[in-house]
């Protein structure tokens, strides 16, 4: 017996040395991820602070004139109505970002639980939920959005809600697929053998594992929702009041404005592009960062 105890201790000692190596070389998110985050924080911060920033109101006509090129006075120039494009871009961020955020949050809170429940219980519950997801997916999304927005109200709340409904199916399906994979893993069975109740298994064992791919998708989804708002704007059905990125791009997109004042559409396009890029990239990094090494040495 004495010999065995020393054996056990030995392994512990050896592991200590090895674990130190393991920690020293921890995976990194990379510089790119942090650049993306800085950009997102900047955009969100500016949007949040818009009312107190020393910028024009969104509908103020600037002193300079119409379709003026970018200058120190107007970083992004002025539009066809002579309004400061930079200021409008910041005001527009408020609407575009809120729409994206609210939409994806409702997608997460509805789609996530539904997907986990479907993947965990399978059988009839799964059949019903999956059918709902499939129906939602087969709905032409912009048409659905148009229908609802047109008949109800072109308010921020409704637009965000509609885009949220559209986010339910993709997020839910991802949650379901991941749940199915993890539910077959032995640690879930172990939890069952221990006597944990279904709710506990779903919350303690499955949720933490499903949450990572879900939040990675949520970042991508936020980008999709922001873009979708732009799409609605192009069809004349975005939020009624105030500037949005989509509406600004649309205003700058008619051939005449494009010819003489390319900056009117290109400025918001650039900001939108960088924001979407940052969200996509951050989502991608999060996914691969949390991709747990399944095989230990």
């Amino acid at each position, binding site marked *: 017996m004495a010999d065995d105890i020393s054996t056990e201790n030995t392994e512990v000692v050896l*592991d200590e040395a090895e674990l130190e190596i393991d920690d020293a070389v921890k995976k990194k998110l990379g510089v790119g991820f942090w650049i993306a985050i800085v950009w997102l924080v900047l955009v969100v911060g500016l949007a949040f602070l818009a009312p107190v920033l020393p910028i024009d109101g969104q509908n103020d006509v600037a002193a300079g004139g119409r379709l003026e090129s970018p200058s120190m006075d107007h970083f992004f120039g002025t539009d066809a109505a002579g309004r400061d494009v930079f200021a409008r871009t910041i005001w527009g961020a408020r609407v575009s970002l809120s729409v994206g955020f609210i939409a994806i949050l409702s997608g997460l809170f509805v789609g996530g639980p539904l997907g986990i429940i479907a993947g965990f219980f399978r059988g009839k519950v799964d059949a019903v939920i999956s059918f709902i997801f499939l129906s939602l997916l087969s709905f032409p999304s912009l048409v659905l959005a148009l229908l609802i927005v047109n008949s109800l109200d072109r308010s921020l709340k409704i637009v965000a809600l509609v885009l949220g409904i559209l986010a339910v199916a993709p997020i839910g399906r991802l949650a379901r697929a991941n749940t199915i994979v993890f539910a077959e893993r032995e640690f879930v069975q172990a939890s069952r053998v221990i006597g944990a109740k279904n709710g506990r298994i779903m919350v*303690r064992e499955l949720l*933490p594992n499903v949450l990572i791919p879900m939040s990675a998708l949520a970042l991508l989804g936020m980008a999709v929702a922001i873009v979708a708002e732009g799409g609605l704007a192009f069809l004349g059905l975005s939020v009624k009041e105030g500037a949005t990125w989509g509406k600004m791009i649309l205003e700058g997109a008619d051939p005449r404005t494009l010819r003489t004042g390319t900056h009117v559409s290109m400025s918001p396009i650039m900001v939108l592009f960088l924001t979407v890029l940052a969200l996509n990239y951050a989502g991608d990094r999060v996914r691969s960062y949390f991709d747990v090494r399944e095989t230990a040495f």
Partner: protein
Amino acid sequence: MAGSGLAPLRDRPDVLLRVEELVVEFPVGRKDVVHAVSGISFDVAEGETLGIVGESGCGKSTVARAIVRLNDVRGGKVMFEGKNLAVLEGEELRKSRPDLQMIFQDPISSLNPRRKVRDVISEGLKVWGSQMGAWSEGRIDELMHAVGVDPKFGDRRPHQFSGGQCQRIGIARALAMDPKVLICDEPVSALDVSVQAQVLNLLEDMKVRYGLTLLFISHDLAVVKNVSDRIIVMYLGKACEIGAADELYEHPRHPYTRALLASIPEPAPTVEVSEGDIEGELPSPINPPKGCRFNTRCPHADEICYEVEPQMEAAGDDHFVACHHPVAVSIDD
């Protein structure tokens, strides 16, 4: 039924777990059924280790999973402390769980990658908090120490441990429930040879220390023999032979057991057994052969084997075999 019959069941007061005519079937497609386990009976006495050995697809893991009800049971009984576990449902089933714990094959997959190992081990105590008395960090430390994982690594996550260490953590998780029966489903087959012996020794130590009864499932005949008191040899959902470990390996009576033993490549230079080769491959469990299920590969099969299923019959002291033509006891006796 080949390998059926209640003959191997013992009428002893210290029998802790008694499995009678267990049947497990899985539907595939619309009408097909996989006959994973077709009427197997055995019992385990308190403090005993029962080994179940057989090739992949013989149903040995299904038996284990059926006992802890990770699979649904089609027929038969699983008697434990006067209750038939096979028919329990809902809360009653859940309440029976702590007594029978399980260790899984893949040590890494059996631990939640997102949880700290201390949480993994204490999970059961938290689930049963009120019934099992307040759990303490001290108890977790003690368990971790017992299985040879330094408690100071409790805040690490499973992927920071080696396979052998993860298996130790899995054992600690099971022991935390203070179980009476520990079911080990291929606990060492995913481990490196040099680590395998550590875990086998640990299981033997824990068995003594916590007064466990073990059900040990493996495809490795040498490993099973090392840990078991009694052994069942399974083939295609049926039991072929049951007996005391040493007796069974010394005097295998079923042609399949003989073939298995003859197939093992031995690292030690002993005499090679050349007879008992079996040809062909495992038949499909969807349409198992009629009569004796081993008849497609058995060198001794004749008409009766294709028609009538052999029953378990006594073949010696605590030795039972289900075969129409059991192999005679070796000449060296």
